[in-house]
């Protein structure tokens, strides 16, 4: 069994200036991973490097045992999907057509959908509870609904890994916990690996199977339990009172 994701001596940053260095880790089974850290410490930079939006400074990335640099855009689009902080720029489109974008890596040059594609689109909408909005224009949705649509698109892409960069930042508490609940279900039911960066410590610690904590230019990987008991999170976030429920 090949590792889902493995990272060896990876350094990330902008313009050769390292933000995080010497990252080594292995994701060997599907799980919900939450990336936490203070602002400006490199959460987004790390996610952008992992998703290939910016080049790494040094080190190697392997998806399913294949070296990242040798994968084409097309191959990568079948290995991982992304949900970025900024909502997609498009407005004039129905929910279903938007989710259908997730099938682009699988369709031909005319973007003709096959039976399998329609099935995946419907399943993704079902899972995210947005089937009722299928024909609604996405401009008419609330922020929470729109975030579910964005996630449904990533699910329809049917990749073993989904990256989410601070998807909860526009959402209220109810929507945030709904989203984490949904992600948790995806890991359980669909064997996805989900890597999400978030400022929501409570939710992150409650739902995550694994925490990636950024502190002082390095990345520490462990279970939520470990971080709670060691007091490292409280130390990092300056004695913030965290309630664990």
């Amino acid at each position: 069994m090949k590792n889902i994701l493995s990272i060896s001596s990876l350094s990330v940053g902008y313009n050769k200036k390292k933000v995080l260095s010497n990252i080594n880790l292995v994701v060997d089974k599907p799980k919900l991973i939450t990336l936490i850290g203070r602002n400006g410490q490199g959460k987004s930079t790390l996610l952008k490097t992992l998703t290939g939006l910016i080049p790494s400074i040094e080190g190697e990335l392997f998806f399913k045992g294949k070296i990242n640099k040798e994968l084409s855009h097309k191959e990568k689009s079948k290995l991982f999907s992304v949900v970025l902080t900024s909502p997609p720029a498009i407005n004039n489109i129905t929910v279903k057509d938007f989710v259908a974008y997730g099938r682009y890596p699988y369709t031909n040059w005319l973007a003709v959908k096959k039976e399998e594609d329609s099935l995946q689109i419907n399943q993704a909408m079902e899972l995210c509870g947005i089937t009722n909005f299928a024909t609604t224009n996405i401009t008419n949705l609330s922020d929470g609904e729109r975030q579910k649509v964005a996630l449904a698109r990533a699910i329809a892409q049917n990749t073993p890994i989904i990256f989410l960069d601070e998807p909860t930042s526009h959402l209220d508490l109810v929507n945030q916990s709904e989203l984490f609940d949904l992600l948790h279900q995806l890991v359980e039911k669909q064997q996805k690996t989900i890597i999400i960066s978030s400022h929501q410590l409570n939710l992150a610690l409650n739902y995550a199977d694994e925490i990636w904590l950024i502190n002082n230019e390095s990345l520490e990987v462990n279970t939520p339990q470990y971080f709670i008991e060691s007091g490292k999170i409280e130390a990092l976030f300056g004695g913030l009172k965290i309630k664990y429920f």
Partner: protein
Amino acid sequence: MTSKFSILSIVLVITSLGLFMADIALGSVHIPLVAIVDILLGNTVEKESWNIILLESRLPRALAAILAGSALAVSGLQMQTLFRNPLAGPYILGISSGAGLGVAVFIMGFSVMGISLSSSIWFANYGIVISAILGAVLVLLLLMAAIAKLKDIMTVLILGIMIGSIATAFISILEYFSQEDSLKSFVLWTMGDLSSVAPDSLKMLFFIVLIGLLAAFAISKQLNTYLLGEDYAQSLGINVNTTRYLVIFVTALLAGSITAFCGPIGFVGIITPHIARMFLKSANHFYLVPLCVLLGINIMLLADIIAQLPGSDKTFPINAVTSLIGIPFIFWIVFKNKKIAALN
């Protein structure tokens, strides 16, 4: 959407046929419709002069209008999507300025340097076209080099505008030092002229535009992903660098060839994609590209009819007419919808 698109297409095909007939029927010499149909079918008509007027003047001009309308509209659509900018058009990257500089060097530059080119007939016929193509290609190569170095597409846009300004500056210098008659022929070129396309060049132009339009349709899937933003496009397996090259190459092919043969023609490229999106209420390029072709043809034929000033023996420069009918249309959209139709 498919049914809406079908209805729109059928309506636009019918109106373009009507406008095409009107365009070749109207003019300073009255030719009866029956005679026009006869000539188009290859039958003999009572006056030989009608034959010549129609086949050697009006028909090539109307066909040039069809090619120009479809090419400019589609290249405008591609630029607006690539740069996510509602004001982008086929000329935004300095393609027309580059072509203009080529033509300016050809018409004015050589005479300033004391070289006479009018002695060769071949050169006089094709010189403007070739120099316009060379000028446009020069700008294109500069942009391609820039894209290889730059990641941000907006920077490429600004660079394109600046390259255009430099070309315009060179043109001004040439204009300042040139003789009266060469200055006039250059200014006439900048006004656009659909009738300057010779019937044998028309065939070549047809094939260039056809290739450009087919290529534009073939990259519809890539352009659809651009509506989500470049980062999302990449995550959907699109090679964004290749797509940039393709889009700019297709635009240069379409807008560059039309500019070379007909001179710069403004506004059709900017306004047509907006009308198409407004009608379709969607930004799906698989529908927008054919719709822009049909709308561009209609608009350009209409502009050509107006430029002929039916009932008089004078004509307006086509570039002025497209602005005169294009700009009020933008005003109408703005006041009706309180804004220009959303880009995507």
